[in-house]
């Protein structure tokens, strides 16, 4: 997960001249102690791409008024209203959107870039991963959800109420005219037939189900990415620090983890909800803040077992500092289990969100799948698509995360591979 230094081609090496080429010709007195911090490429990416997002987020938070659209205000502040308008840049992202973008940057920097950098290893993982068909399909499915979630809101407008088009059936389906207020498509034998205008039909309020599902993807991906990031950061930090400090510190940290694990998050969330109201952001924050216990425990035990490996002894004896060892060797080697662990807790969050929404205590401002299911439950007997469309999407997404987790564990488990290869 962490980046390594850039590798360079053999040609570059040949081209260098001068200084010692042989290990026993090096005069170590010429070399300075390296600084404590080194800027890794992953950190560079994070800073370069993440900083503007953070700044924009702060700008949105403190400068832009509640009723203004962020980019419209930004355009006028920068004197670029004209170009912004012609390009149609009038988005109004919320703080959750900024956080989402930032986590995507983190993923690119700490997962995507290292995979790209170690191309050969990545291809090797891919070959292993490909053997698992369901996992490949799952990956494609999650890819669709991701693309839909990121681009969807730009292409498909937020579903709007249209009472004249309530309970429109999906394409190739029909509904008794009794239930509808009007029919957009063809009417035959007293039944209203679906049209491509509403491919998955509409809800009671006439909102397009397809649009709702697409917008629900955004929420799903936001939950997945943001919770994963928060859980990973807290869990990995807590786990490795605990493992490496040992003794009393370890004891205290792990007992704290036990508390976190046994904390009644749901009840706590209800409490928060009655005091502060139920925003999606609050949901993510609360559930992520109490969801890292298992990850921390997992990381700790993994880190302990990895630090017994001889390559850790070898790097310790090279004189590298403990933080360096943890960052460069321990965490990347716990990655396979961390990723698996994370892909398996994401479904939990998604389900929790859906459950809350279904109970009617979710964030009504965001069109989540749970909301839709909840909205459709009263009309399930004559308009089942309102429940089925988001329900199936949710079901398949959760299934996909589970498949993916297993497949990743199998694919990037070099220990098992090394045995069979030789």
């Amino acid at each position, binding site marked *: 997960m962490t980046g390594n230094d850039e590798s360079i081609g053999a040609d570059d090496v040949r081209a260098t001249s001068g200084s010692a080429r042989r290990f026993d010709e090096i005069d170590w007195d010429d070399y300075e102690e*390296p600084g404590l911090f080194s800027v890794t490429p992953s950190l560079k990416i994070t800073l370069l791409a993440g900083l503007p997002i953070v700044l924009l987020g702060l700008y949105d938070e403190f400068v832009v008024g509640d009723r203004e659209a962020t980019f419209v205000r930004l355009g006028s502040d920068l004197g670029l209203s004209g170009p912004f308008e012609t390009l149609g840049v009038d988005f109004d992202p919320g703080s959750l959107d900024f956080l989402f973008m930032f986590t995507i940057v983190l993923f690119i920097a700490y997962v995507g870039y290292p995979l790209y950098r170690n191309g050969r290893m990545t291809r090797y993982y891919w070959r292993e991963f490909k053997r698992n068909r369901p996992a490949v399909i799952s990956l494609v499915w999650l890819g669709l959800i991701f693309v839909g979630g990121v681009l969807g809101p730009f292409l498909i407008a937020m579903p709007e109420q249209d009472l004249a088009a309530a309970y429109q059936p999906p394409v190739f389906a029909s509904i008794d005219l009794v239930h509808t207020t009007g029919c957009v498509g063809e009417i035959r034998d007293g039944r209203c037939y679906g049209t491509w205008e509403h491919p998955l039909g509409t809800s009671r309020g006439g909102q397009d189900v397809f649009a709702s599902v697409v917008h629900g993807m955004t929420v799903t991906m936001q939950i997945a990415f943001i919770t994963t990031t928060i859980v990973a950061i807290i869990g990995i930090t807590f786990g490795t620090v605990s493992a490496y400090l040992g003794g009393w510190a370890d004891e205290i940290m792990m007992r704290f983890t036990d508390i976190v694990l046994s904390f009644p998050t749901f009840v706590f969330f209800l409490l928060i909800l009655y005091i502060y109201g139920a925003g999606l952001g609050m949901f993510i924050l609360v559930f992520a803040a109490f969801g890292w216990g298992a990850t921390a425990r997992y990381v700790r035990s993994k880190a302990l077992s990895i630090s017994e490996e001889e390559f850790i002894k070898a790097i310790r004896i090279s004189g590298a500092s403990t933080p360096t060892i943890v960052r460069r060797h321990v965490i990347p080697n716990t990655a396979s289990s961390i990723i698996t662990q994370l892909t398996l807790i994401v479904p939990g969050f998604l389900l929790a969100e859906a459950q809350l929404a279904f109970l009617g205590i979710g964030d009504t401002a965001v069109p989540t799948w749970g909301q839709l299911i909840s909205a459709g439950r009263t009309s399930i007997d004559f308009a089942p698509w309102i429940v089925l469309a988001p329900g199936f999407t949710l079901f398949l997404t959760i299934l996909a995360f589970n498949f993916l987790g297993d497949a990743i564990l199998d694919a990037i488990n070099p220990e098992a591979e090394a045995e069979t290869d030789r």
Partner: protein
Amino acid sequence: MSEPILSVRNLKKHYPVKRGLFNREVGRVRAVDGISFDIKRGETLGIVGESGCGKSTAAASIVRLEDPTSGAVIFRGGGRTEESPAGTTRPTNVVEFGGRELKRFRREAQMIFQDPASSFNPRKQVGESVAELLEVHGMTDRKQRRAIVEDLLERVGLAASDYERYPHEFSGGQKQRIAIARALVLNPELVIADEPVSALDVSIQAEILSLLSDLQEEFDLSILFISHNMSVVKHICDRVAVMYLGKIVEIGPTERLFTDPRHPYTEALVSAIPTPDPRRRRRNITLEGTVPSPADPPSGCRFHTRCHRIIQPAGVSLPQDGWRRVMHFREHVSRGAIDIDGIKENTVADGSEATPAHLEAQVREEYGLTEPLPDERADEALDRAMEALVRGKTDEARSVLEDRFTTPCEETEPGFTEHDDDHRSACLLHSEEYDTRDVESDAYRTGDGSDTGGEDIKTDTRD
């Protein structure tokens, strides 16, 4: 130049055994318990011993992978008077090194590990794993790092292009070559090799060993070679130290140690090496049992519980193997290891009550004490102890046995005896008190069980 590059003095590494709510220390595992030796420049010193003797812990303590409990590890002697930045004399004792000095020491002492399968980060190109050491020590020029590592890979018999390959793409022997490259890349003076060939096939072992000795010659390395394999040690080491339960029992030039082992343990180890010669199927010295726990090492000479030359107290004269069996029995009684009730339950097949005579016969058979001992007084003591034991009076049996059969070996901790140049062993048989004493038949060496014809143990110190 005669000054040793590394002197280890009375090095100890104890692991506390903690129990209970407050992690109270209830005991100590004495993994390494006071070892001393020197390694000269360009020399290979072997440390041999069975698993659990503390040899790997010793290595880890020397390079400070583990912090030693006490003792000194003097690197490059007391003659080093380089000024440290603070203006004080740089300490030469590795045990006292602070962060900066330790890091500097890392450049001069490196290690090769046993298991090629786990000695590389599976997610890193092996070249990077080696180059990382250069980076840690401040070489920021990536191209230079790569050039050095590629050159080194070629020197250890691999190709420069192997830089980019991953550990799983190499065989065990190849990985061990890379491990050697990694140990050498900082140009150290001392390399500690902890069982470097134990996980390899014999044909690969020979390759790695010859590579190691070539490199040693080329770069004037000193090597501390840790192994359980006596025949490997015999052929690569200049001197050998034999460890048993955290202590060195004998140390000396390889040739002398193998041809004329002066400690009974070394003798047993040497005799146990299977010789690849079908015409010399010799009788080995059989050591009883296994290595005792280092958490509770035997008193006196730690080897006395298994020794085949254990000394008899004044007034007892038994044949050595009979004596050994008695001592073995005594040790089990003292430990409370003989469970009379268990024997009662298991020996009687038909459900009837086992008679004491029956039990005694069973115990005697299991400890090989069926025949009366040739020494009357000893035999009488044994009889009394047996009787007490089968009647459930374990304490009485213990005191009777301890009264009669207490060996000097468990009372006195032997010091080192110099035999000749650089050859020392720690066995009471060589101390003045016992060296004139007749010891009963050397049954194991002659191969017959006869109990007569006492042959003197060679104790003279040759000049």
